[in-house]
């Protein structure tokens, strides 16, 4: 099915803002099957479940016990429930070489179409993901039966600017972030009462507007150990305007409707994506990557060889300013 983007193209989205049971794969699978059926009965064309919705979040050593390969019969069975619709589910994926990934799968028309492996694993503050999981290495926007390209991301992936930008440049028209975001900071000055929610809302509106792309955010609720997940799932239009916001902390299957034709209108009115300059980004990125890795040669050139690097004396002064005085042998 191709959506004709110049006329009304309504898509009903179901956001499964649920509280998965920690480590209880069978119970969570059953819940996914039930909610998928409920969402389809309500006419949803896309059903989105949260990060690690099939397993719960604070798994620690349980990670290896709930991991599934992407051809696991339980994933295949869940995909089998998606005839005529699309679903995004979160699980622990085990690769052929037994690495464990936090993964988001796009299931459509009875098949597993795509798996995104979480790229950025927060391991600071209250997070400890890198200890238990491997980080993904690929980012792709993929075509979908919805008639638009979908870009998947998992939670922390959105705290890195390149992710929404790369997905949009790769053709994504729908950015979907699935999360297990722990709520914190209840300072009275927060706009929405929770610091985490304020930050996320700012980011998602910004990404939607700068990439002129729909942003769908599905965040879980419930409690694990010390942390409470705050929900607040959202759908943002390519203009940056919120189209739907689920309540904070409430569990539920929430329905939101969007008109995919908004994409065309917004992108013609505000051609930011047309004006992106990935070749410029690439050139600068190559230089920055070289320099950060310590590979840059003295001959590295920018803009035709002038101003490539500061003169040696100034460079030394700069490095002193950054690193403090140090012995230079050359």
């Amino acid at each position, binding site marked *: 099915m191709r959506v004709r983007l110049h006329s009304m193209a309504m898509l009903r989205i179901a956001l499964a803002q649920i509280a998965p*049971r*920690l*480590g*209880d794969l069978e119970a969570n699978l059953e819940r996914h099957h039930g909610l998928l059926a409920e969402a389809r009965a309500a006419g949803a064309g896309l059903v989105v479940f949260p990060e690690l919705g099939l397993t719960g979040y*604070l*798994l*620690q*050593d*349980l990670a290896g016990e709930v991991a599934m390969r992407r051809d696991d019969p339980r994933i295949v069975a869940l995909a089998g429930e998606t005839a005529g619709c699309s679903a995004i589910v979160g699980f622990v994926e085990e690769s052929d070489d037994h690495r464990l990934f936090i993964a988001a799968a796009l299931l459509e028309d009875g098949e597993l179409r795509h798996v995104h492996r979480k790229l950025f694993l927060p391991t600071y503050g209250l997070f400890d993901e890198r200890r238990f999981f491997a980080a993904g290495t690929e980012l792709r926007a993929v075509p979908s039966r919805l008639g638009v390209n979908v870009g998947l991301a998992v939670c922390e992936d959105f705290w890195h600017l390149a992710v929404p930008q790369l997905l949009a440049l790769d053709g994504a028209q729908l950015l979907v972030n699935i999360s297990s975001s722990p*709520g914190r900071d*209840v*300072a*009275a*000055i*927060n706009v929405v*009462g*929770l610091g985490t929610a304020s930050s996320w809302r700012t980011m998602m509106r910004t990404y939607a507007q700068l990439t002129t792309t729909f942003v769908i955010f599905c965040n879980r*609720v*419930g*409690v*694990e*150990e010390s942390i*409470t997940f705050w929900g607040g799932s959202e759908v943002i239009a390519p203009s940056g305007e919120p189209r739907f916001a689920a309540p*904070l*902390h409430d569990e539920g299957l929430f329905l939101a409707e969007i008109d995919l034709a908004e994409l065309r209108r917004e992108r013609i009115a505000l051609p930011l994506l047309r004006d992106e300059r990935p070749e410029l980004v690439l050139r600068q990125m190559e230089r920055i990557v070289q320099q950060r890795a310590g590979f840059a040669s003295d001959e590295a050139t920018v803009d035709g060889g002038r101003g490539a690097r500061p003169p040696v004396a100034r460079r030394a002064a700069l490095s002193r300013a950054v690193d403090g005085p140090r012995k230079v042998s050359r």
Partner: protein
Amino acid sequence: MTRASRGRAGRAAGAPTPEMAEELRIDTDVARRIIGEFIRGQLRQAGFERALVGLSGGIDSSLVAYLASDAIGPERLLCVLMPYRTSDPASRSDGEEVVRRLGCRSALVDITPMVDGYYEHAAPPADTSPAGEALEAVGHTRRGNFAARTRMAVLYDLSVVWGGLVVGTSNKTETLIGYTTIFGDNAAAFQPIGDLYKTQVRQMATAIGVPERIIAKAPSADLWPGQTDEEEVGFRYAEIDRLLYWMVDKRRSDEELVAMGFAADTVARVGRMVAVSEFKRQVPPIAKIGPRTAGVDYLYPRRRPGSARRQE
């Protein structure tokens, strides 16, 4: 330092401090929702429907009683009043007022015979102490700690009778400075207000409708007549809360704190209190010998499939 340590000569505590640093002010609706979810989640995951709390009549345990009642309903909450012979009679009447307003179940256990019985009949003579402490050493500190641990023993005993989990009443201020008796008042199944400073506890208590009398009176461990926290610790809560917030939550160095206007000796002293009490906030270490050791490289969430007392 413990809650029962001998008070240093501090300034008179005087009237309670209604003031609160602006940066510590919280959205009480959101905090209440998070704590409610937390209490329900902890009980459900453990396979319990009921809870019990040691209610002293002070602001911390009163607030916890209100939050627990709010989260699970008063019929599932047992408040246990455990006075000692030196306890202020007003503490008990304040606790009874909380019980009356909430409409929850309550139990009264006078711990005097247990505490005094130990020191009068069971405790080894003082000259067995390597330090050769005089009998006088069974003063505030030992007796206060013993009272706190006796209350813990009563709560855990009644938790079996009631079929509920013990809800902790420690706040963030006392947890950070170590103004707590290890395995005594800090022993609990979970701690709903352990991330709220004392002044935030006051803000929450006001928002949730804890009786004004309880909010207004000077906070006290009530281990001996006239004891107040602020006199014993030597700081006013409004002051120490703000200092801890910038020191711990906002990661400011001692130099930065002094530049912000905090007195250098206060910064140093509070920093020491936090460091010295680190052991009270952690699970005791296990000597690593085998291939896999609990808490070291055997890491599971407290609650997982099969861990609930009763399966749902």
